[in-house]
């Protein structure tokens, strides 16, 4: 109690009265952060949603500024540089969402107005008018709320030192979300610059619960750089911020729906549980229905309305909807007018949606921490438990839901470890620095290593990146005269011309959107052949859709978009024309589980759950029966082992294995396995992967080949497949090319927007795929290819996870030759024909398409 009382002394009377007037008392962690700020210590606050995190973050600022207001005034206001002055920017707040920055600004207005504090709060986002942005640089507010991209822009302006010289505090909101992406890398580099411009600044991070708070806390403080000559003597203790953990409120109540219906073997629609979901919405005041993909959201929303006899106000929210439509839903939500919102991760982050009393999670939870954050969206009051119901869409998802519920009960976390900073982001930052003030390589190298993700950056990687920014970093030194940054006679790098600076400004940021197409609703043109000629231009704008999705469609295919079934009519430039279809069932896009793979942690729990028969009693009866049958017919995998089944079916021979490592790693595995089977003359035809299993099919009798020793399973799954086989595949992998494109854009090799053009140009004048092909052939160790490889380790190809898995199962492969498909294999077998099939060479596919045509023509 004493500690609490003394902390409470830190709160000035004005604030104490304000809390009292509201009937609140300051929470312990709010006072703890105040104490840290007084001691000039950076701190990481770990707190669940609803714990008053934002106020905790800003309280020290409000107190300090209210005290500054009482001190004698001698505020020098000047637009000149190098003028020492009081006042100026005090606190910089950074959030991942500009909407969140705006929301927080609104929330801050209240205490400031009610206590009549002389504090100016402003936001700065992409939407802020140019005139205000310019004014903010000359005459900054006390508190500026902004995003990582805007911070990068401010740092790259000549006003940076003036603007940030006065900075006392940095508040980083939703830090757990920011640090998992390249935006986090960019932010860390921005922080490293702020540590230099304002040496006394302290940072406060606000975060949901994470697996490794210690590691996250490094993000907030400058890392210690060991002196280059001090051999053996390490730089002392690791640089970390203090950690404040808010007492976690009531534990959430999470249940799994025990459906009365038949539980599907495969698929992600959860259609079987539709009536049960509807009942849940009906019985609660406001429910959030989370799903994993946009297409799932579309489908569930549409299905719910089909059975919505009570006309409950149910809305749809996902990132591809038109902005105006999303704002409408958000406003209705805040006003308490909605009973249910079907949404994707577009609603994962912290904007306050008012009173939500139930979270319904449809489909796989994917990760324990992810699930907990979603559940936290229900009920923003700490002392009442959040309530959630999980709806597994198939039998494997039952296991995943069970594992997630157990993990949540233990409060186990599975957030990813802190990233290693990406070189493409570093390239962007280096360009930004050169746009600000000229720099020496030595100085900047030391500065960027103070950022936690770049603490281990080698000098040669840094120098290569500088070289890349200057002249492209090519072995063929032919671009010296086109250098974008140049060294002056003192060795300082500076921007070669103003156009380079302009281009940097236009292209700052690390969010590279998928190539999107605008979806427009037009009148159907029956019997249309898909030519772009005859469709009338115009039509109502429905939103945007990923280009790669449309690429897989044929004219006349139907899919759900914007809550209606539409028919694909035509594609012209960057617009997709669709018409309203009367079909009830659409050929719904089924890009399976969405972007996030099943977390390694949860996968491990699922394997243990499977292996532990005594735990099966917590599973629904249908699932228990399924697993028992598997035990009789084949084998349920043990916790470390990987079961491989081979069996014939429909004139083909199948190999099904169960690594449980997520769809991305399985896809990569499938690519590499088919290459090996090809070499082993098993004549593989294709494969399909889901989150849990991989099925490969071949002409050759796989069971016989294993029996005769012509296929050695240990050799087939040997980790050495990540050598030459991988290299050969990467040369042509579409996923690798997508990864490269992102790196090329972020690094500034390829601008998204061109100077002198208002709009981004969709029709790039060259294809990044072709650039990849040429670069890979001529300079395979180029810094951008290294950056793309680093991304592939954890991104779309999930190579690291695949490597870990291959090592794990080495010596633990159990083979079963069966005469027919096993119960465990049914789900992945059902994906065949629904999911894209990989692994087949382009020539065979093209020849087949051509042959089909001939057959058609011959009748």
């Amino acid at each position, binding site marked *: 109690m004493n500690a609490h009382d003394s902390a409470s002394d830190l709160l000035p009377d004005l604030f104490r009265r304000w809390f009292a007037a509201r009937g609140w008392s300051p929470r312990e962690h709010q006072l703890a952060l105040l104490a840290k700020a007084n001691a000039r210590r950076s701190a990481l606050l770990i707190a669940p949603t609803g714990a008053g995190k934002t106020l905790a973050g800003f309280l020290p600022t409000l107190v300090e500024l209210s005290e500054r207001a009482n001190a004698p005034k001698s505020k020098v206001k000047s637009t000149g540089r190098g003028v020492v002055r009081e006042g100026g920017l005090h606190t910089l707040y950074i959030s991942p969402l500009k909407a969140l920055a705006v929301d927080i600004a609104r929330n801050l207005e209240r205490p400031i107005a009610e206590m009549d504090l002389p504090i100016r709060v402003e936001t700065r986002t992409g939407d802020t008018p140019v005139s205000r942005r310019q004014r903010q640089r000359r005459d900054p507010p006390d508190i500026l709320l902004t995003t990582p991209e805007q911070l990068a822009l401010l740092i790259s302006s000549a006003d940076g030192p003036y603007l940030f010289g006065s900075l006392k505090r940095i508040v980083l909101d939703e830090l757990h979300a920011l640090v998992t992406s390249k935006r986090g890398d960019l932010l860390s580099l921005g922080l490293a610059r702020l540590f230099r411009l304002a040496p006394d600044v302290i940072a406060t991070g606000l975060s949901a619960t994470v697996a490794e708070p210690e590691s996250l806390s490094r993000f907030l403080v400058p890392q210690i750089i060991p002196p280059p000559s001090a051999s053996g003597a390490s730089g002392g203790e690791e640089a970390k911020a203090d950690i404040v953990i808010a007492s976690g409120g009531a534990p959430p109540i999470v249940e799994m729906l025990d459906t009365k219906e038949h539980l599907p073997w495969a698929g992600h629609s959860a259609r079987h549980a539709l009536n049960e979901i509807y009942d849940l919405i009906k019985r609660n005041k406001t429910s959030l229905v989370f799903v994993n993909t946009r297409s799932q959201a579309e489908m569930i929303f549409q299905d719910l309305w089909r059975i919505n006899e009570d006309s409950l106000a149910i809305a749809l929210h996902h990132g591809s909807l038109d902005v105006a439509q999303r704002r409408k839903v958000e406003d209705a939500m805040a006003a308490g007018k909605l009973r249910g919102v079907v949404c994707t991760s577009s609603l994962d982050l912290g904007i306050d949606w008012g009173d939500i009393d139930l979270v319904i999670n449809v489909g796989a939870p994917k990760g324990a921490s992810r699930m907990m954050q979603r559940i936290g969206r229900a009920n923003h009051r700490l002392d009442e438990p959040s309530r959630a119901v999980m709806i597994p869409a198939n039998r494997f998802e039952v296991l995943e839901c069970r594992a997630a519920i157990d993990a949540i009960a233990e409060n186990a976390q599975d957030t990813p470890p802190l990233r290693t900073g990406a070189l493409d982001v570093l390239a962007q930052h280096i360009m930004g620095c050169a746009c600000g003030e000229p720099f020496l390589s030595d100085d900047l190298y030391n500065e960027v290593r103070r950022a936690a993700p770049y603490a281990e950056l080698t000098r040669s990687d840094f120098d290569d990146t500088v070289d890349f920014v200057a002249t492209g970093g090519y072995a063929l030194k032919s671009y010296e005269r*086109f250098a974008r940054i140049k060294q002056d006679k003192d060795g300082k790098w500076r921007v070669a011309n103003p156009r380079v600076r302009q281009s940097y400004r236009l292209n700052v940021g690390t969010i590279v959107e998928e190539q999107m197409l605008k979806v427009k609703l037009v009148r159907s043109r029956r019997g249309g052949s898909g030519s772009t000629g005859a469709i009338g231009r115009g039509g109502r704008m429905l939103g945007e859709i990923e280009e790669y999705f449309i690429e897989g469609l044929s004219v006349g295919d139907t899919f759900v978009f914007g809550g209606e079934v539409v028919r694909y009519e035509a594609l012209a430039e960057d617009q997709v024309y669709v018409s309203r279809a009367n079909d009830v069932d659409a050929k719904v896009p089924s890009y399976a589980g969405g972007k996030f793979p099943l977390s390694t942690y949860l996968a491990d729990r699922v394997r243990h759950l499977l292996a532990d028969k005594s735990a099966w009693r917590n599973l629904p009866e249908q699932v228990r029966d399924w697993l028992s049958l598997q035990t009789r017919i084949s084998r349920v995998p043990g916790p470390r082992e990987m079961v491989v089944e081979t069996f014939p079916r429909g004139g083909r021979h199948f190999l099904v294995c169960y690594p449980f490592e997520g769809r991305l790693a399985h896809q990569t595995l499938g690519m590499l396995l088919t290459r090996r089977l090809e070499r082993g003359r098993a004549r593989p035809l294709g494969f399909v992967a889901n989150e849990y299993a991989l099925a490969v099919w071949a002409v050759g009798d796989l069971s016989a080949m294993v029996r005769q020793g012509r296929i050695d399973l240990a050799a087939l799954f040997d980790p050495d497949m990540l050598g030459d086989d991988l290299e050969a595949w990467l040369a042509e992998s579409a996923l690798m090319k997508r990864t490269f494109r992102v790196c090329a854009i972020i690094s500034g*090799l390829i601008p998204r927007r061109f100077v002198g053009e208002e709009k981004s140009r969709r029709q790039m004048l060259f294809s990044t795929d072709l650039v990849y*092909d040429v670069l890979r052939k001529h300079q395979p160790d180029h810094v951008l290819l290294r950056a793309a490889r680093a991304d592939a380790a954890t991104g779309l190809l999930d190579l690291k996870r695949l490597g870990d898995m291959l090592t794990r199962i080495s010596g633990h492969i159990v083979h079963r030759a069966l005469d027919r498909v096993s119960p465990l294999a049914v789900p992945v077998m059902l994906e065949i024909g629904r999911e894209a099939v990989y692994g087949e060479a382009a020539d065979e596919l*093209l020849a087949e398409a051509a042959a089909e*045509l001939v057959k058609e023509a011959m009748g």
Partner: protein
Amino acid sequence: MTVVGVALTADVSGALYWSEERLLVVSDLHLEKGSSFATRGILLPPFDTAATLARLAAVVAQYDPRTVIALGDSFHDRDAHERLAETDRDAIAALQAGRDWIWIAGNHDPLPPKSLRGSVAEEIAIGAISFRHEPTGAEGEIAGHLHPKARVVTRARAIDRRCFASDDVRAVMPSFGAYTGGLSIRDRAFAKIFRSPDFTAHVLGDASLHIIAASRCY
């Protein structure tokens, strides 16, 4: 592939060979496209010219033609030929040795590459076939300019490749350059030239060519 009855070999590299005339045609090499972008601050890898010439050398070695026609846009801009690296300049000279070489003018390179050998023409007619850069739709015409590509939706996935477009009366050649993308043959530009959607794509696979109706492509 036949054009107005003349038998031509569409090569999987994107080149066209007329064996009767020992004539090899390549279109839209766009040499020095990389450095062209570099002059504007976009530092594309500077290996494109060497890569394109290496592929050209392979196909020239394969057919050993008497005459080579570069069907326009051989250079990405007017000054491109002056930026050629010495090694690339030598590579071109080696390809030209012992054979006729005709640079057809294109919209990117309307003027002859003064620093290089070879004759220059706006267009050229041999027998019933006329060669020019921009297609007009005339009978017997072989042109480039449009960079045709086709997207074929197969059983497994959509495959996007360069292609020849032809209706037996005229043909549009794919671009040969390392950095040249493509325009879908379903674009209305093609409908104008072929006057009907009824033409064929000769799609460049990895090792072989595939003949697919344009109406089946995207």
